[in-house]
């Protein structure tokens, strides 16, 4: 009699499965249609890094100390700074970063002594050539401010 029982039990399990997919047919759809609707990123999202603009000085606070340059695992940051006059500290003039090799690990943001680096919520990082990825953050901050 196991023969008939198998057929009945087996058939019933198939119908159970079809009930699940049948119910799923009427469940609300979860797709977000990307090009038209954008998901807003979470506050902690690690997009590529940017220079923070401090309200009191009106510009970035980077003193070109090179900590982030040393701490970066893939070595993608190059910082150049210049001393305005003898006694005062340096101010960064160029902050070049190569996003194509940056692994977004966030060590530079953490290790920056003046906390002038922050994550952007930019997630469309594709460019049409490798050199689009090499960006000078100071220049970008200048034209984003103007």
């Amino acid at each position: 009699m196991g023969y008939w029982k198998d057929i009945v039990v087996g058939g019933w399990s198939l119908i159970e499965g079809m009930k699940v997919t049948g119910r799923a047919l009427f469940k609300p759809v979860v797709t977000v249609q990307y090009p038209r609707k954008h998901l807003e990123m979470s506050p902690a999202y690690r997009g590529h890094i940017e220079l923070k603009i401090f309200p009191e000085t009106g510009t970035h606070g980077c003193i070109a100390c090179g900590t982030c340059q040393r701490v970066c695992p893939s070595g993608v940051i190059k910082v150049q700074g210049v001393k305005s006059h003898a006694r005062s500290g340096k101010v960064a003039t160029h902050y070049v970063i190569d996003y194509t090799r940056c692994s977004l690990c966030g060590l530079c943001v953490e290790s920056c002594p003046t906390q002038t680096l922050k994550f952007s919520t930019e997630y469309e990082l594709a460019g049409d050539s490798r050199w689009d990825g090499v960006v000078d953050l100071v220049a970008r901050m200048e034209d984003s401010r103007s």
Partner: protein
Amino acid sequence: MMEAAATSGAYWLRLIIGLVIVLIFSQLNALFLVWLERKVAGHIQVRLGPMEVGPHGLLQTIVDGIKLVGKELITPARADRILFVIAPVLVFTPVLVAFLVLPFGPDLIIRDMNVGLLLIFAFSTFSVLAILVGGWASNNKYALLGAIRSVAQAVAYEIPLLLSVMSVVLMVNSFRFSELVMAQQRVWFVFLQPVAALIYFICATAETNRAPFDIPEAESELVAGFHTEYSGMRFGLFFLAEYTNMFIVCAVATSLFFGGWHGPFGFSFKIPGVVWFLAKTYVLLYVLMWFRWTFPRVRFDQLMNFSWKVLIPLSMLNLVITALVLKLI
């Protein structure tokens, strides 16, 4: 009954118009079915399915068709060139012939032959042959495996398919579709022959290489089974043939078991027969799609066991019981 004299001009005119309508209908239907399947699959999987081209993606299949026609037809290096080219044609044309005898409506049968049902089953085995030729000729181990599997699968489901249909034919003792449908005026055969209907439907899914029995073109095992090496419209032909085949199988199921163009239990609510026929066929098509997006794939030796140990004995038993019952009444 409805035919004009065998050789008069009206007869030929009727045949040609019928064939043209059938060709157009089968192509549009195939395109619609592909779109329907993708939408049904989408919503079953809690996603949208095609939405980009046309309202709710209606033009998606047409655009896909144009893309496929535009694609380059690649023939593998040491492939058997002639067989490789013939296979898609061989799989597509026999399927069209089956439309000749399908009972769309009381007077809408193009050629109501007295061997209608036999003709359909005769031409349906062509698709297995074409898959074998296609798989063998594309000089690719995966395609070869897919082709061998399709032959093994054909052996497994052909016999129960015919046995289950025989029990219906036995009740009507004719292969003519119009008589088969007329006999179901008051009560559909699905209520008299539930087991035969179930076995027929299971074997129908196996015949169209779908749902749990899509062993010849098992995406996750054999990359793409027999049509691994096909590209462009050759692949398109295989694809369209599968969906047209699906329609035919469901049309035959409707006319054999669900009363063709009759409404339920004789009341047809003044809805024309064709609408009844197409409605029932599309419900069955939906069930086929439902199978595909629910069940995992059966291993081909399990299919053989299932067929030889369950389907064939059951359909034979059903046939014997039908014969006994008919004898006694």
